[in-house]
């Protein structure tokens, strides 16, 4: 089984330095792309490979690039940004790549920047990834010294600057336009689309923001071709994917597997099944902002269309398992607390709606829930949908809630009618003052 992304990553070992990375074939794709291919050819190749954005939205990467204005009339400078602001709860796949093989990301970024003719690039990294920040800083410095970054890279006339920018820890910064605002030194509020960042992005110039995992795939596609990449996947989606499992499983972790590996295989083979004494109740397939899936969905392949058809989203591909001994209301409350806190406060439904939802769930968890609270939760799941809010944060927050209300509604009702959390040890209900 080919594992192009993680082949050189050994847990517990320091990442390959530049020399070692070059020895195993590193930076070959830079030579190939910059010397033998036109930017348009790189774009076309990536488009053909059917590489879909690994940040969660799953948009064809090559297609995204193709919206960048090219040619002498295009606005300059153009920017490439690696979105390393991995803040989705339950998601830790980019961290593996950042800490495990920083040069792979830099290589992918150089080729991607070349494809869109960007001259300045940024790695926008989550503040908490201190080790990754150290590794990337070193790797960027080494790449500059080796002539892979800077002016006239490898004598091809292509220039690229690269900077690491560490954020201050806002979930919003994972949204590409909010990330751009943050990078400009402004509030991390999302921007209106259109205009899309490909046309008016960082500092008003054409910009591509790609996820770390997406960018790490680029060198391999350049080296091995589109057909090879497509064949890596088990289903119609191409490539491999870094899948993760967390929750009460025997061996939680992150593994590179062919796109389309089934949920059951992930859960039972790679994660070793549920811990003893715990039963599977449900899972969030791609991070906190995706809909619950339950027992009946376990044989679905983890790829974009299959999960979408089941009413959820593949998201980041890193699943969180809900077991039978965890209160689903408390579980969802925890998530809503996160989302309410991470709302940027720009649009009304998200800013005011999420705290309301959070307060209701907390009240339920404390046994103070009222039947009408379910109606309030229902209208939030209805109206905090895409398009009604400014960006995807609140709709994402509603996904676990609406599916919890669908699959675990009786658990919510029990909280209300029994005036306490059935999972809680304190059973006696105390009226609130």
């Amino acid at each position, binding site marked *: 089984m080919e594992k192009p992304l993680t082949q050189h990553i050994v847990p517990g070992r320091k990442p390959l330095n530049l020399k070692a990375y070059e020895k195993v074939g590193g930076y070959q794709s830079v030579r190939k792309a910059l010397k033998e291919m036109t930017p348009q050819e790189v774009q076309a190749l990536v488009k053909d490979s059917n590489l879909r954005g690994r940040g969660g939205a799953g948009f064809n990467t090559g297609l995204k690039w193709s919206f960048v204005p090219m040619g002498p009339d295009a606005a300059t400078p153009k920017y490439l940004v690696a979105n390393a602001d991995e803040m989705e709860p339950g998601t830790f796949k980019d961290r593996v790549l950042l800490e495990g093989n920083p040069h792979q990301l830099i290589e992918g970024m150089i080729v991607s920047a070349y494809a869109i003719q960007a001259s300045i690039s940024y790695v926008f990294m989550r503040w908490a990834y201190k080790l990754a920040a150290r590794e990337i800083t070193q790797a960027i410095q080494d790449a500059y010294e080796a002539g892979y970054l800077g002016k006239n890279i490898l004598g091809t006339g292509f220039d690229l600057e690269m900077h690491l920018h560490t954020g201050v820890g806002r979930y919003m910064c994972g949204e590409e336009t909010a990330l751009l605002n943050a990078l400009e030194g402004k509030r991390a509020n999302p921007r209106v689309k259109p205009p899309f960042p490909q046309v008016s992005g960082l500092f008003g110039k054409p910009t591509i923001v790609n996820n770390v995992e997406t960018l790490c795939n680029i060198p391999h596609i350049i080296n091995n071709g589109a057909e090879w990449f497509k064949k890596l996947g088990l289903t119609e989606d191409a490539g491999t994917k870094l899948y993760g499992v967390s929750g009460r499983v025997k061996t939680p972790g992150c593994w590179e597997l062919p796109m389309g590996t089934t949920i059951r295989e992930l859960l039972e083979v790679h994660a070793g099944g549920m811990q003893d004494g715990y039963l599977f109740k449900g899972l969030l397939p791609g991070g906190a902002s995706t809909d619950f899936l339950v027992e009946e969905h376990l044989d679905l392949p983890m790829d974009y269309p299959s999960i979408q058809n089941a009413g959820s989203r593949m998201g980041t591909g890193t699943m969180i398992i809900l077991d039978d001994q965890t209160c689903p209301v408390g579980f969802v409350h925890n998530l809503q607390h996160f989302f309410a806190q991470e709302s*940027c*406060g720009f649009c009304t*439904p998200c800013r005011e709606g999420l705290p309301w939802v959070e307060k209701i769930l907390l009240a339920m968890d404390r046994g103070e829930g009222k039947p009408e609270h379910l109606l309030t939760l229902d209208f939030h799941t209805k109206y905090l949908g895409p398009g009604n809010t400014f960006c995807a944060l609140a709709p994402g927050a509603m996904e676990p809630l609406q599916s919890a209300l669908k699959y675990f509604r009786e658990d919510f009702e029990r909280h209300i009618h029994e005036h306490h959390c059935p999972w809680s040890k304190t059973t006696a209900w105390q009226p609130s003052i």
Partner: protein
Amino acid sequence: MATIYIDNKPYDVKAGKNLLEACLSLGLDLPYFCYHPAMGSIGACRQCAVKVYRDENDTKGKLFMSCMEQVREGMRVSIADLEAKEFRAHVIGWLMTNHPHDCAVCDEGGSCHLQDMTVMTGHNYRQYRFDKRTYINQNLGPFLNHEMNRCIQCYRCVRYYKDYAGGKDLDVYAAHNHLYFGRAEDGTLESEFSGNLAEVCPTGVFTDKTLKQHYTRKWDLTSAPSVCHHCSLGCNTIAGERYGTLRNITNRYNGEVNGYFLCDRGRFGYEFVNSAGRVRMPLVRQMLPEATDKYTALKAAASALKAGRVIGIGSPRASLESNYVLRKLVGEDNFHHGVSDTNHDLVDMALNILCEGSAPTPTLQEIEQCDAVFILGEDLTNTAPLMALAVRQSVRQKPMLEQVSKANIPVWQDAAARSLIQSEQGPLFMAHYTPTKLDELATKTYFNAPDDIARLGFAVANLIHPDSPEVRGISDEDQALAQQIADALMQASKPLVISGTSSGNERVLKAAANIAHALIAREKAASISLVVPECNSMGLAMMGGHKLESAFEAVLNDYADTVIILENDLFRRASTARVTQFLDRCEQVIVLDHLHNATTEKADILLPAGTFSEADGTLINNEGRAQRFFQVHATPEEIQESWHWLAELGTIMADEQISSWHGYDDIVKALTNEIPALRSIKKAAPPSDFRIAGQKIPREPHRFSGRTSMLANINVSEPKPPQDPDSPLSYTMEGYRGQPPSSVIPFFWSPGWNSVQATNKYQQEVGGHLKGGDPGIRLIEPIGTAPFSVAVPQAFVPLEGHLFMLPLHHTFGSEELSNQAAAIQERIPEPYVAINATDAQRMKLSEGQLLSFSIEGQVYQLPIKLSQTIPSGAAGMPNGLPGVPFAELPAWAILNRDIKWKKQPQTTF
């Protein structure tokens, strides 16, 4: 135009607008918060959601924010759709989770956009049962109150304050449902335009602090359309009164002049009307007691006039009508402008440039559309604040035209346009002797003495058109700058030259005129805007009259012995010694004014003149636009318009023409017949007999309360309401309730729209002209007969032992009447003299030390402020500031010390 279907009805709407603008322009009710016509859309509040359908077969539709959707031909939309309605009600529900239920004690209540929108959406019952979040408020200075708990986070305040008005000290802090809109710490908001926050804020976070001192609900105010008297721009205002005191000034939308905004001097300067320093009773100084009734005072004045040889001194802060009646009373030969002679000549020249030049003068709204601006010798923020605000918008024009339209971003899409153009700005060039707040936007700033500014201007004109004279001996550096400016102006589609009288230098005006003329000669759509000193300076110049100095001479040479001074403190017009000498020589001094001042102290007969809120009249602003202001409230008979006093005097004196007048309209008629240049002023507003459906226009809203009880402490029977013979407005609640002509809108209100946002309903299209055209009538059109001026000055050369004292202006402090408003007084700077830092070093003087100098015998001792920009050998002194005696600036100040300036090469011709 595009045809769209709203709830299955076809409507023709303007293409390129957003759906919200289209709906509001059609008169449909659709709630919104974050959108503002002057600032466009950002899509934050999600209040204006509507259903949009793909085509006529689509029955499901999807919710869209109408402010973010461009109108498309054939678009199918539903406002009434149940889901859309439910969503809009939920948005209010969300906002109400944290909004306090304090309408009853909130200053905004009754004029609150949030209240209106809440009622409009039908959100009646609160479902939210948890705690509300609370904040600590800030002290934001004398103008605004801050109550953050009421905030609905629409972002309008920061968008207005930072993005639109260029303020630095208001921002949004924190995140999620704990956003904070305020300053980094307590303190006075620095912007001169902060007061607009009270109107921009859709609820009661920012409210008028001066109104709070004498609070009245909007529905209890007696209001009338007024015109700001505090600078030459003539911004339209609404003045509100209750119980005989003026309560507030709010913006009166005029699509050509001030649009939605006022400056703080205009908004908060009104308090002088309520000042303890008002002249409230006629005074006859030779009687005891001095205070007397109207008729005794009139008789005394009439006998003084009969006995003496009379001259009249008019005023640029009095209405055309008052000046005209004075001129009539004393005779044209004896009518003098009550302004300094420098001021007199400069305003005449400005008028001449506008009339005989070739470039038209733009409205403030047109200034916003100009894409290259060159400002010569004007500190707009301090002399004509709203023009500075307009220039702030103009620097966005070039990138908006070049980039935003290219990227297919509609102009109303504010957030997208701003993130695209970022800090890019169109050309703005500043030439002045002191830093101004617009410098931060300037492509280049040029600091030098006024004569050198004029030289730069002439050099620019010469580069644009060779017929404009060459400037000899100009430095290479200045020539390069001139070239850059000339290129920028020539490349622009709407270049604009701004200058004015504030630097006191006629060459600067001439240079500006030459540039505009040169641009026109090169067939550019150029315009020229000139700032003049006071609200009716232009009107006075158009009326004509002698100089003040000739009035002094007439009395001192014994040609006259009696003077009538109209609304004018002569001690602000000429040196103390000269004015004292003049007044002491007069046998009888008759003064009409609002406030006690040094001149009224010298009056033998003092007549209380009604202020702008107690008078009808016409002002002509800097662009030559005649605008009518109306009396807000009835006054006791001892306080009346100056023209009223003077006409009564004329009647007593049996002046044939004056006695034939029976009211305001007759005066206007006589004025327009006599002065051809002012012929059109009668069109500025409908005559007093104007009626709609046989009714007058009420100054009071139909919800006005307390009418039968407010005077019950005096008399329990309801008095007959005062009559207004001079205007089509009534002092009551009764009258025509529909929309009056734009010039007589006493307040903006429409069913369901109690806040200032009701303005939408009075406009042809949202953010556009008022229905029936914007108020005011332009009296000046350029005829293009003036040749290029050849008066290129020589470069400024310092004079040993002297400082060339230049006037410095202050938004707060330089204008006479607003200086008497308590809130404004808190913002007036301390007196100072600004001198070149190197000169100071040479004189061994440092910041804060006193500099002693004299101008025309008047000795000054002022603390020093060091300036990096004032040229060596020159200095600046605040104009009109309380505590700084008048000097006719610019002038050579004699230093009481021996000092030699650095030798500068003398330019020779």
